[in-house]
Every structure is written in structure tokens, then in C-alpha cells.
């Protein structure tokens, strides 16, 4: 049964050079239902040209408000949905060129944990069996192996292996999220995408799950892509952070540097809008932030997508689209101010 235990190790051509994940020019346009019978279908530009690399063992944060395309990006990387354009390379393997069979093999290398732990688990299957499911999908081990392996992973995520037969509704949100993490890890992937993994959890539980994730990262040599709308969590958890707005990355940098010195006006606004749990922090009337709403991704503004809400907008912002450029080592921003 060497198959189950070797996990990620030994597969893939590249042992440690270069990025683990590389995303280039990723685009996803959804065709919506046309309004009238003869109208052209409106196009929702969910992801509109995203590039980033994720190094081995690092954690990259993707932040942005709803509709910025962060969850769509995750699904594109995993090829749960097919992109309109662009390329995704995992460990020197072109994810988008894979055949169905190759994709199945590739699923062992990259897994995902979703936001709502309860609804991401089958309500009618015991948590132990759900953890063992991916082994079943890939035909790894026999029933007994899978059973033992799932019990082992229950313990790995800090649950008792006696909980094997419980159903998800008997667990709290935090416990179910542990189950979802165990299910994602049982194939020993190299890349784990965490899509708002603590957003649905209570404050006092969040840190428990984050600690577990940090712990597992060291133990299993994992690389994380961490998606969240909560900047404090992203900053605490990620080595580097990318800020998304309307399907594009507007700034990407080391987390410390991004928070100390945000360069893009949108990043600045996001940071100043967070109310701090601090008696000397800003009161509601002095909270920063932005006027207006995020424009619809069906008819995004021309030029820089942010120019409609930007306090520093200039004439050229509505004419040309700024591209990401490195203004300091490791700090890229897409803005004409820099």
C-alpha cells in the first residue's frame, strides 16, 4: 500500500525549483441569459486577466470584496470551471491542457476547503466516510485501509477518531471545518486552496482553525492560497497578499509591506475601512472607506476599473488600463500614480 503513504512526494517533475503554481492571463467571462430573444447575451467579466505565482511552502492571500473574482479564480485554478483564456501551471504541469484522466491524477495534488463547513459536507454521510471519500475516488487502498486512514486524519485535525460515524449536523461549525480540512488533506496534496475557511466561524473558534492550518502547513509541506475578505486575517496568515478589484489584481506584495505602505488607492481604502477593536481606534464617523458601490462586472468602467470610486483619479485613468508594475522589490501595483 505504498500508494497511500507516499502522497504528494515523488510525483511531478520539479522537485523544488521555481513556483509551485503559476497563473498567467487568467480570464473567465460568464455568458448570462440574454434579456430579449434576439439580444446578445450579456457577459459577466468575473476574472479579467489575473497573473500570480505561488512559491513552494508559502501562503498567498487573495483579498477583495464580493464580486472581485477571488472565488472564481480558485475554481479556475482547480479547473472546477473552464477558463475563457490564460494558463495555469502546477509543478510544471499545464493544468488546462490536461485530459480528463490526467486531471483526475492532478486532483491529488491540489485540494480546496470551502467557506461554509456544514453545506460543504454531504448531510447523509458519516464524517469518517467523507474523509475517506477522496481515497475511494482515486481507488487507493481497500476498505480497511481507507477506514484506518480516515481515522488517522480525524486525529490529525484534532478530532477524536471515535467521531468516525457522526453525521455533520451533530458537529459545530469549527468541527465540521476540521472534517473538511481532513478530507482535503487525505490525498496529501501539495497545494491547498482555502476559500474563506474561517469566515463562517465564531471569533473564538477562528484562531483555533488558523492555528491548525499553520500547524498542518509545516507538517505536510503545504502551499496555501488563502482567499478572504477579512484583511486582518489575511495579513496575519499570508506571506504575500494580492488585492483584487473587479476581476483584476491591483496590488501584490509582501503582506507586511502591503499593510504598512499600501500603494493602490483601493488597498488604502480597504485598510482604513476596517473598524478596529480598540477603544482608541476610529469611531464610525472617522472610518475611512469609499463612496459608492462596486460597479457591475457586466459593464465594468473603461480604463482603470477603480477610477469611478478613486479619490485620486486623473483624466488618463478612464482612458487606459494600468498594468501591474514593480515599484519596489516584490511590490507590484497597477496604478498611474506609481
Amino acid at each position, binding site marked *: 500500500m505504498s500508494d497511500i503513504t507516499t502522497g504528494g512526494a515523488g510525483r511531478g517533475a520539479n522537485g523544488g525549483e521555481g513556483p509551485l503554481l503559476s497563473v498567467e492571463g487568467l480570464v473567465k467571462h460568464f455568458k448570462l441569459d440574454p434579456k430579449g430573444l434576439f439580444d446578445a447575451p450579456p457577459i459577466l467579466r468575473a476574472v479579467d486577466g489575473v497573473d500570480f505565482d505561488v512559491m513552494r511552502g508559502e501562503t498567498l492571500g487573495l483579498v477583495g470584496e464580493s464580486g472581485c473574482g477571488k472565488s472564481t479564480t480558485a475554481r479556475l485554478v482547480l479547473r472546477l470551471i473552464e477558463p475563457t483564456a490564460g494558463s495555469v501551471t502546477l509543478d510544471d504541469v499545464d493544468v488546462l491542457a490536461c485530459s480528463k484522466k490526467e486531471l483526475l491524477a492532478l486532483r491529488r495534488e491540489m485540494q480546496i476547503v470551502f467557506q461554509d463547513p456544514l453545506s460543504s459536507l454531504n448531510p447523509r454521510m458519516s464524517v469518517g466516510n467523507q474523509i475517506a471519500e477522496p481515497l475511494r475516488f482515486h481507488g487507493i487502498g481497500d476498505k480497511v485501509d481507507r477506514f484506518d486512514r480516515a481515522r488517522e486524519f480525524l486525529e490529525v485535525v484534532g478530532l477524536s477518531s471515535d467521531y468516525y460515524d457522526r453525521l455533520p449536523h451533530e458537529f459545530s461549525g*469549527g468541527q465540521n471545518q476540521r472534517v473538511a480540512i481532513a478530507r482535503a488533506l487525505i490525498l496529501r496534496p501539495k497545494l491547498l486552496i482555502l476559500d474563506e475557511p474561517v469566515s463562517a466561524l465564531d*471569533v473564538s473558534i477562528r*484562531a483555533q482553525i488558523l492555528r491548525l492550518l499553520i500547524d498542518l502547513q509545516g507538517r505536510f509541506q503545504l502551499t496555501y492560497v488563502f482567499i478572504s475578505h477579512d484583511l486582518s486575517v489575511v495579513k496575519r496568515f499570508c506571506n504575500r497578499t494580492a488585492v483584487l478589484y473587479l476581476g483584476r489584481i491591483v496590488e501584490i506584495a509582501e503582506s507586511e509591506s502591503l499593510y504598512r505602505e499600501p500603494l493602490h488607492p483601493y488597498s488604502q481604502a*480597504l485598510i482604513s*475601512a476596517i473598524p478596529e*477593536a480598540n477603544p482608541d481606534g476610529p469611531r*464610525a464617523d472617522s*472610518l475611512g*472607506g469609499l463612496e459608492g458601490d462596486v460597479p457591475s462586472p457586466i459593464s465594468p468602467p473603461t480604463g482603470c476599473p477603480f477610477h469611478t470610486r478613486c479619490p485620486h483619479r486623473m483624466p488618463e485613468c478612464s482612458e487606459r488600463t494600468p498594468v501591474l508594475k514593480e515599484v519596489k522589490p516584490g511590490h507590484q501595483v497597477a496604478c498611474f500614480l506609481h
Partner: protein
Amino acid sequence: MSEPVLSVRGLKTHFRLRTGTLKAVDGLSFELQAGRVLCIVGESGSGKSVTAQSIMRLIELPGRIVDGDISFRDQDLLALTEHEMEDLRGNRIGMIFQDPMTSLNPVFTIGEQIVETIIAHTGASKEEARARAVELMRLVGIPEPEGRLTDYPHQFSGGMRQRVLIAIAIACEPDILIADEPTTALDVTIQAQILRLLSDIQKKLGSAMILITHDLGVVSAMADDVLVMYSGRMVEYGDVKTIFRNPRHPYTLGLLDSIIKLDDSRESELRSISGLPPIPINPPPGCAFRDRCVKAMDVCGTQDPPWVETATGSTAVCHAVEAEEGAAGAGQGAAP
């Protein structure tokens, strides 16, 4: 201190379930002072939303208010008929809900929904009500209000819908505004806008406000007073600076410690409260927090914790705090 606008005493709201009695709110007492913002903080299942629904008398079976009294100025809310209560809701007490998507009726225009509330409570004519609706929409920062009166809820963004709900809630200049997680469903930049608006409106109208939230950042930005709830009961109460600077109850301490702050470094320790919140179905006697508490003593499992007025200015409901205060008091007494 002035007369409280609202006082809640010994409120118990229980839900009868197949598996037992869920004591969602179990003996809650507090006062809301005129013109002040009281934040009720707690995690899911702490009973904070049920408290708001109890004040509005919106509890539905299998839930029931089994004990306690709620007085609004000199009126006993629990003694009012349903009809009198309907008169009060949306008129003297306005409510804003968490989900702006589902709190508006999708088949009526925004204008119709605001106008209807105004007419129902003030008996104004249709024209007067319409003029007032436009004025309210401008007040809550909806651009081009005249044009948007005839729009339907789905044509508004989440943030704009929450503004509409605020406009409806303040239409009759209520004495109390109750906001139940008003920004939880919104993005950060929109949340900042709505918090600014709520604070602004509350000051303009001079009404008292109860803001229910799980987000201590929101508390810090909005509250004058803070009430921390755990498992259907109050654990600590005090003004906002006291609660943040000198929290005394172990739960409040743990909660404040669990928050991840922007200026935390990647090396800083991630703290949490161990264990899970209990589900208050047929709860045993004593303190509900004892299993997760770092200061738990034997007495915590047998006797309900006492109310302690602390030297630092808050009220904590805790055996350990009582012991600390006792020791400190004795120490002070002996010193001079």
C-alpha cells in the same frame, strides 16, 4: 443619569424543542439610556438576536417569552395587545435586520414600501408621505431619490438596500432603533459607509440604539455601552472604554484576545478560547462558561455566578471576579 428609555428585567425566552427546552435568553436584565448606543455582543447562539426579537415581540412558536418584563418608557411591552404592539413597531421602535436582500418585499417598489410605513403610522396623505420618503432617502444617502422611488429592490445593491431599510426604520423618528447585525452581509468598504450613516442618523434623531453584532471592531466604532452575552445570559456590561481597556470576565478577556488585529505580526500568537460554546438545552446549574474558563472554580458548577460591580467600572457576572474584587477590597481596606 437620565430615565432609561427601555428597561429589560429578568427576560427569559425559551424554545420548546423535541430534545428539551432551549433557553435562548435566560434571565437577562439591562437598561438602555436615551441617546446612547448599546452594543450587544456575542457569538452565534448567545441569544443576542433573540433578545432583539423579544423586545419587538417577534418571537414565534415554539419560542415564548416565559418570564421577565420589558418596559418602554412607562409602558409594559409584554402587557400590550398585539394591535397596540403593531402600532409601536416601526413607529416608536424601529428595527433594521441583517439581511437586506430578504427584508424587503420583492414585488413592491422601494417608494411604495417607504410610503406605506409612513402612512400606516402617521396617517399622512399620499403626497405628504411621498415627499417625506424622498427626504428620508436623501437623508440615508441614496442618490437621485425621486428617480429611484419607482425602482424595485432587486435594482438596488446590498448597501443601497440596507440604506432603504434604515430609511424605513427611521421614518417615524423612533425613540429606539434596534439594528441586528446590520453590516454582517456587507463588504468592508460598504460596512464603513453604513456604520457612518447609522452613527450620523442616531445623533441627528437623538434616539437610543441597540446594535447587535459579533464583530468587536464594529462595537469599538459604534458603542457607548457594551453588553457581552454568552449562552443566553449577560456576562459583562460596561461603557465601551472600560470593556476594551479593563475587561474582567474571563469570556470577555478571551474574546478580545481572539481577535486578529491588523497590526499583529505573523509571529504573534494566535489565541483562541478552547472548547466550544454550549447549546443551552436544559443547561445544568452554574456558569455556562465554566468548561472553557481558565479561572473556573468548584463553585462555578453549582451556583449561578453573582453580579459584581467591579472597581474598574464594569459589571461582571462571575465567581472569579467576585473573589478578585473581594481580595482587592480587603487589601485596600487593610492598607491605610
